[in-house]
């Protein structure tokens, strides 16, 4: 699966009067501002690879060079220096006829302002790439109708683009790119011109389509939330340079520098981070084969009133409470499975934080996180969940346990209450009764 679909090596793009001189000076270590007299450097030393079937997002503010980069990936802009290869074939420095062939067969594009042909019907717009490939009319219109159905526009083929809403027009834009039937799809701020609700819908639809089609997508955006939502990997650009490439979680939890950190401050972390990103080592975890005494000892050390119990294969078996364990010890029994209670709540490690709040509230223990096979891989205390929403890398580190309260006897001694032991015993009975009720 890790086949490289697209690779950019040390790409430079300089607009202006002496681009090659500017590149030479940039390579020698001069800054973007220093070479301004030779030209404006839009892209400086950009290198990245895009794997087949992934969504690679290039994110940056306007003027960061992201639109220039994407236009170098299909040769709309010539690279001033550096190399772009599609499946190993160079597209930089090749004759224009060969470049057109590659554009027809290998890489298509979706534009920010849709760039539809206003004088052609929707179906004819979608069929445009096929027309350029020389597909006969009946065949290409049939194909266009099929693809329109795929993007949810079945029956709209006869309309003119101007009769459609913005979101629908961009679906036509996507349908047109899909009609070209290329492996690689370049999307230049494809959803930026749409209003927020439609944008969200389109993002979801794109992911849905991607599940089916498995294209290699390079997506340009200035919206970090969009980047985090869509991207398998994200490249963050600033002033023509790529400052960090990583998964959304990498970018969020381990920003490469202050700029990226500042940028990710506004991200809706609850929709990006997953349970697996923020979970902690489960503690205490009792093995099914251990006895109630071991369980009690572990709970006491961890200052917990209950613990998760796992089987031999670390599969989550249930929970055990300190009260049940105490009773069992008093009775002199030793089979932990007899007092096992069902796990109140557990979540998969790929679940985003957004979906953890309700389970976390309902779970009396730190929320259990399991993998696809049901093995306990971690827990998320509510405090951790809250901390994860805050900015900064500290959020995903293990938090220290709260200071254990002083032993009750000592407090009682200070307060001068003599019947401490009796009180404590009564309280414990109370607690046990409550647990009985729950059961």
């Amino acid at each position, binding site marked *: 699966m890790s086949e490289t679909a697209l690779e950019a090596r040390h790409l430079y793009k300089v607009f202006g009067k002496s681009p090659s001189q500017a590149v030479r000076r940039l390579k020698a270590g001069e800054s973007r501002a220093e070479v301004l007299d030779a030209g404006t450097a839009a892209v400086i030393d950009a290198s990245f690879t895009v794997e087949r079937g992934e969504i690679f997002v290039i994110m940056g503010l306007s003027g960061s060079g992201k639109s220039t980069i994407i*236009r170098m990936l*299909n040769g*709309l802009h010539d690279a001033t220096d550096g190399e772009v290869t599609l499946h190993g074939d160079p597209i930089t420095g090749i004759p224009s006829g060969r470049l*057109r*062939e*590659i*554009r*027809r*067969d290998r890489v*298509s*594009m979706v*534009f*920010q*302002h849709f*760039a*539809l*042909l*206003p*004088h052609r019907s929707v179906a004819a717009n979608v069929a*445009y*790439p096929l027309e*350029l*490939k020389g597909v006969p009319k009946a065949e290409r219109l049939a194909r266009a109708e099929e693809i329109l159905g795929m993007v949810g526009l079945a*029956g709209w083929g*006869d309309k003119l683009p101007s009769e459609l809403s913005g979101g629908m027009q961009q679906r036509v834009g996507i349908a*047109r790119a899909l009609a*070209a039937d290329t492996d690689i799809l*370049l999307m230049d701020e494809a959803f930026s011109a749409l209003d927020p609700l439609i944008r969200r819908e389109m993002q979801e639809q794109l992911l849905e389509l991607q599940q089916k089609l498995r294209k290699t997508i390079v997506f340009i955006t200035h919206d970090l939330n969009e980047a985090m939502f869509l991207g398998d990997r994200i490249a963050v650009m600033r002033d023509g340079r790529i400052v960090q490439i990583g998964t959304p979680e990498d970018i969020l939890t381990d920003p490469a520098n202050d700029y990226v950190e500042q940028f990710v401050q506004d991200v809706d972390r609850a929709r990006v981070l997953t349970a697996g990103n923020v979970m902690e080592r489960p503690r205490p975890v009792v093995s099914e084969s251990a006895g109630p005494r071991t369980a009690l000892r572990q709970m006491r050390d961890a200052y917990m009133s209950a613990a998760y119990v796992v089987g031999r294969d670390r599969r989550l078996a249930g929970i055990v409470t300190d009260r049940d364990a105490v009773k069992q010890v008093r009775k002199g029994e030793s089979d932990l499975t007899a007092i096992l209670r069902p796990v109140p709540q557990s979540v998969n490690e790929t679940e985003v934080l957004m979906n953890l709040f309700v389970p976390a509230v309902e779970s009396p223990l730190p929320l259990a996180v399991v993998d696809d096979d049901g093995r306990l891989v971690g827990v998320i205390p509510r405090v951790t969940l809250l901390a994860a929403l805050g900015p900064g890398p500290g959020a995903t580190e293990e938090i220290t346990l709260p200071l254990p309260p002083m032993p009750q006897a000592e407090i009682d001694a200070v307060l001068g209450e003599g019947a401490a032991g009796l009180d404590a015993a009564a309280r414990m009975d109370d607690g046990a009764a409550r647990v009985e009720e729950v059961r």
Partner: protein
Amino acid sequence: MDGFRIPLGTWVEAGVDWVKDNLEGLLDVISLIVRTLVEGLTTLLVDAPFVVVIVVAALLSWLVRSWQLAIGTLITFTLLVGLELWEPAMQTLALVVVAALVAVVIAVPLGIWSARNATVRAVLKPVLDFMQTMPAFVYLIPAIVFFSIGVVPGLVATVIFALPPGVRLTEFGIRGVDAETVEAGQAFGATPAQILRGVQLPLALPTIMAGVNQVIMLALSMAVIAGMAGADGLGKMVVEAISTVNIGQGVEAGLGVVIIAVFLDRVTAALGNPAEYPSSLLGMLSRRRAARRRAVATAEPVLAA
């Protein structure tokens, strides 16, 4: 400063003489083609029964614009007959149509070329400025020298005078096409010729047609001046009226020009923006065709079921 004078006029005269002496063959060919075209069209318009011409003109008005214009055309063209202006009017119409045709055939490719090439644009701009601001009469002089008296110098002068807006608006229209849409054509692998035909020309068409409309209007105003060079038509009548201070004839001939002008202007303006005239015959036909296609499309599933 006494006695110092730049002999520009002499130089131009020398140049004109040189052209006349050395390019006579070429001038003869141009003359022949132009005369054939104008006289052919004039003969066609004058020899055909005027009723037929009027009906065709009215139908054309309805086809591209509206039935109101068709009725207007019917009335005003009949008025031309009533004023006994039919023959000169048709001569003028033929001259204008041929001149505009020639001007468009030259102007549109020039406009496309200058839209794509900055050097061409830089060279063409001052030339166009010169052509447009030079008093129109001046063109008549060398034209008469080259082609002698008659319809040909009139037409050549008309073409030169009417050319600039066609070039300018074509260039403007093509350069005004949304850059992203052109990029889309490139991104899907279209050749420059395919982009020109499939994207740039269709999107620039309203602007180009505005240019064509301007060309025709300028050609019409010039056609009257061409009367001075001896071209038959309403222009000649106006010139005669001026020289004999004949108010009646002047007004009548002038009115004839106005009628032709309104007809040409409305028709060509509608050609550029067909969408703005839904009540035109063309618009109605295309709507009916779309409706039938939709009916077929909805009927298909029923058949399949």
